[in-house]
């Protein structure tokens, strides 16, 4: 019997396999940031251990950094200590670091691919659950905890039980204006937050093949939001074209050897998945969340659901809690929900295509009164590219805030936070209670919905802007 893509990549990385024990997997790339690494480096120091492969390790500062005044010392002393600790650890252990102010600084999952370090067939880990992003290149990539960060630093390996395999096949083509984000939000509402638990998922089908690399990253990024161990997509010409010429991409004979190998990284015809889900992209529409987990979503054209409409008691109770927290009434059309803050950015939607699309929609409009729009590039490179193309002028002209690179409002850890009761439309990945700041209320949305919502002040799609212009 043939193998699935993930089985091929997995098997290529098994250092040691023994009955009754998890496999020992070699890790090709270990990404590090300031929040989940200090205790791991401390552990190494206490045990007198070194970083085994600093040449397969890369650190950047992203979670904790401000997106304003990034050229000045970090104002919050506790945040500053954490960032300073990373700098000291990187220096002491010989790890390459792109600190705040460096031209390669940015969100760890934006930086890896743009440097060309993320390549097909690799194993990639990071102390961050959105490491699944890198699966877009046909890599097995997943988030780990700090104990595992220490394990990888010390041994360049991880002990992992082999997950089951699942195929998510998305047939057809996405309609105009419907994006990878809508696709993955639709999927998560279909599966629930635990639907992928225990599986490595391969996304495939026409709609996946038609996505750009950045769209594929958006889909794989949110694999963790439905509980999957990892999500990946078979590499193809789109993948190779994206990688070629990147700073750390192979060149010359190495490039040819690499591509020859990457072309073998497809699921064999006769391979069997443990589970399969099939969806039709052509029926998908702009999709938004109403609740407090990413599986609580509905088409933008729909209404806030009635908790009584859920069959399972735990879903009913979950919906009741969510509506109370979100300050929403069952039956309210989603389009009538007023939004205070629109956040464009994050490892889900903070890349250059995202900013281009947002600028295209917002051009010629103003941000609605009573609403603010925060545009946060995923990396310094993305910011520079956007400025070269004049996108920042479009945003500033519309009344948006144009910020420095980082995780920003995706998580309430740096100065960019919602205040209690403040409502956001966010292109990030999590709508958990308090995720964007204590008491903050989050609606997860795509880039087009975010841009249109900023203009209208209520959850909207670009189609609503056309009406606005013609009225």
């Amino acid at each position, binding site marked *: 019997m043939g193998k699935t893509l993930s089985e091929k990549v997995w098997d290529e990385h098994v*250092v*040691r396999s023994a009955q*009754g024990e998890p496999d*020992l997997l*070699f890790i090709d*790339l270990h990404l590090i940031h300031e*929040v*989940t690494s*200090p*205790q791991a480096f*401390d552990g190494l120091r206490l*045990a007198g*251990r070194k970083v085994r492969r*600093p*040449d*397969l390790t890369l650190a950047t500062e992203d*979670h904790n950094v401000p997106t304003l005044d990034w050229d000045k010392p970090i104002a919050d002393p*506790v945040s500053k*200590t*954490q960032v300073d*600790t990373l700098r000291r650890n990187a220096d002491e252990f010989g790890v*390459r670091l792109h600190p705040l102010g460096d031209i390669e600084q940015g969100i760890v999952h934006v930086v890896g691919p743009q440097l060309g*370090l993320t*390549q097909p067939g*690799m194993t990639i880990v990071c*102390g*961050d*659950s959105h490491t699944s992003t890198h699966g877009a290149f046909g890599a097995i990539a*997943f*988030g*780990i*905890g*700090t*104990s*595992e960060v*220490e*394990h990888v630093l*010390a*041994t360049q390996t991880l*002990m992992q*039980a082999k997950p089951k395999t699942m195929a998510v096949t998305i047939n057809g083509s996405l309609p105009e204006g419907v994006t990878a984000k809508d696709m993955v939000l639709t999927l998560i509402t279909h599966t629930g*937050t*635990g639907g992928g*638990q225990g599986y490595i998922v391969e996304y495939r089908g026409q709609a996946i093949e038609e996505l750009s690399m950045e769209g594929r990253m958006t889909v794989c990024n949110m694999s*963790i939001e439905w*509980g999957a*161990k990892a999500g990946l997509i078979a590499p193809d010409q789109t993948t190779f074209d994206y990688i070629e010429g990147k700073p*750390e*991409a*192979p060149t010359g004979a190495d490039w040819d*050897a*690499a591509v020859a190998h990457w072309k073998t990284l497809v699921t064999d015809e006769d391979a069997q998945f443990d589970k399969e889900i099939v969806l039709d992209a052509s029926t998908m529409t702009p999709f938004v969340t109403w609740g407090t*987990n990413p599986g609580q979503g509905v088409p933008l054209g729909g209404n806030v659901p009635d908790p009584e409409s859920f069959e399972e008691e*735990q879903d009913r*109770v*979950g919906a009741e809690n969510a509506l109370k927290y979100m300050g929403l009434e069952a039956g309210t059309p989603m389009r009538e929900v007023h939004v205070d803050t629109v956040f464009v950015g994050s490892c889900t939607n903070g890349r250059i295509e995202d900013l281009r699309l947002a600028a295209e929609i917002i051009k010629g409009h103003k941000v609605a009164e009573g609403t603010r729009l925060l545009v946060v590039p995923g990396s310094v490179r993305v910011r520079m590219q956007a400025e070269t193309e004049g996108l920042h002028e479009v945003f500033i002209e519309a009344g948006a805030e144009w910020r420095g690179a980082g995780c920003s409002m995706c*998580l*309430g850890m740096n100065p960019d936070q919602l205040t209690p009761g403040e409502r956001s439309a966010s292109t990030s990945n*999590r709508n958990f209670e*308090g995720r964007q700041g204590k008491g903050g209320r989050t609606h997860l949305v795509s880039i087009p919905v975010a841009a249109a919502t900023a203009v209208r002040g209520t959850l909207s799609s670009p189609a609503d802007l056309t009406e606005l212009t013609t009225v």
Partner: protein
Amino acid sequence: MDKFTTHTGVAVPLKRSNVDTDQIIPAVYLKRVTRTGFEDGLFAAWRNDPEFVLNRPEYAEASVLVAGPDFGTGSSREHAVWALQNYGFKAVISSRFADIFRGNSGKAGLLAAQVDEKVVQKIWDHLDEHPGATVTVDLESRTVRAGEGPDAIEDSFDIDDYTRYRLLNGLDDIGITLTNEADITTYEAQRPSWKPATL
């Protein structure tokens, strides 16, 4: 890591599903560079509510958490496990754990005992009748026990064999892996030269 064989302690019912790691410890509490002191952040938003179950005096000494399904979803922050441990929890019982949370628990020495959903309900019912009652989580026999007499609860829980073995013996993962260092060196020698490097 300390050995874990069996634990009996006051059990607290957390009757919520999808308790994500942002609820267990919000991001703003993640700035420490130590493994201790995270108890202040545990369920920080919910603990503001005086009615929240952990604020009730009968659960002041709680060390076993009995939660709804999909516990520990979301962020990979091991701080969620540390916060539970720093607060005094030794074990969490749920019908479904998120993978990363389960893995982090095993590494840090918090027992994540997965039971059937009906068992969670039985324990919740028992705790409703007897607030402040204890629950035993026995890793050697893989059972959870509560109550006495005809209404006593005794059911098995799931945990993978390897994590159980490590917890029972208090073994350090890195130490185990380094006994196989020769295998790692052999593997490294045959990696293709075109694989990327950061230095």
